[in-house]
């Protein structure tokens, strides 16, 4: 079965600083990968998804970007953080044989001050 790692677990950054969050997956190959943001412990907002290396789809225009340099690595970045970027960032994986079931990582708590 797959395991999803995210780091860092928590991050406090000043406004205007850059961001890099990393997600890596073990136990599966060629998965679909997803970045979500959750604000205030409620709804999930899908930010980006990827069906393969170098293939990124953006769901909403915003201050963030994503990259997939390797099959099981998914990176969320920003050049300059905004206060509104604060939230809980979740990486998810769909291994392709689970009827659409996504499996989630432990998340990264980002606070922008």
């Amino acid at each position, binding site marked *: 079965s797959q395991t999803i790692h995210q780091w860092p677990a928590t991050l406090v950054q000043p406004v205007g600083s850059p961001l890099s969050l990393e997600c890596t997956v073990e136990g599966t190959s060629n998965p679909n990968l997803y970045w979500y943001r959750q604000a205030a412990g409620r709804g999930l907002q899908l930010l980006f998804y990827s069906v393969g290396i170098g293939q990124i789809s953006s769901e909403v225009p915003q201050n963030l970007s994503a990259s997939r340099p390797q099959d099981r690595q998914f990176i969320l970045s920003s050049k300059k953080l905004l206060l509104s970027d604060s939230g809980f960032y979740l990486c998810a994986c769909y291994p392709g044989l689970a*009827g659409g079931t996504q499996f989630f990582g432990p998340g990264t708590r980002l606070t922008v001050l």
Partner: protein
Amino acid sequence: AQSVAQPEDQVNVAEGNPLTVKCTYSVSGNPYLFWYVQYPNRGLQFLLKYITGDNLVKGSYGFEAEFNKSQTSFHLKKPSALVSDSALYFCAVRYRSYNTDKLIFGTGTRLQVFP
């Protein structure tokens, strides 16, 4: 367009009582439906899913969900609630197109089980 609605922001239930968390959906074609649970500061955990077959789906931790096509609902249920069931619950529906395969989530329902 595919969508999911969770009409209750919060559900309160006494320990030992049955619980229901509601979900309705709107999809074109046959739905793939999911329930996830999230504990504080944790990622989402998969509980159960409906793809086809028996309308009553059994999942983890004693939870089950009933698919009702005529009412376009997929309510989550448990016969006897535990305090440890207190968490945030999400319903989701799968959306697929030519180059897209994603889940559309509801806004979440907070379940509070009182001792």
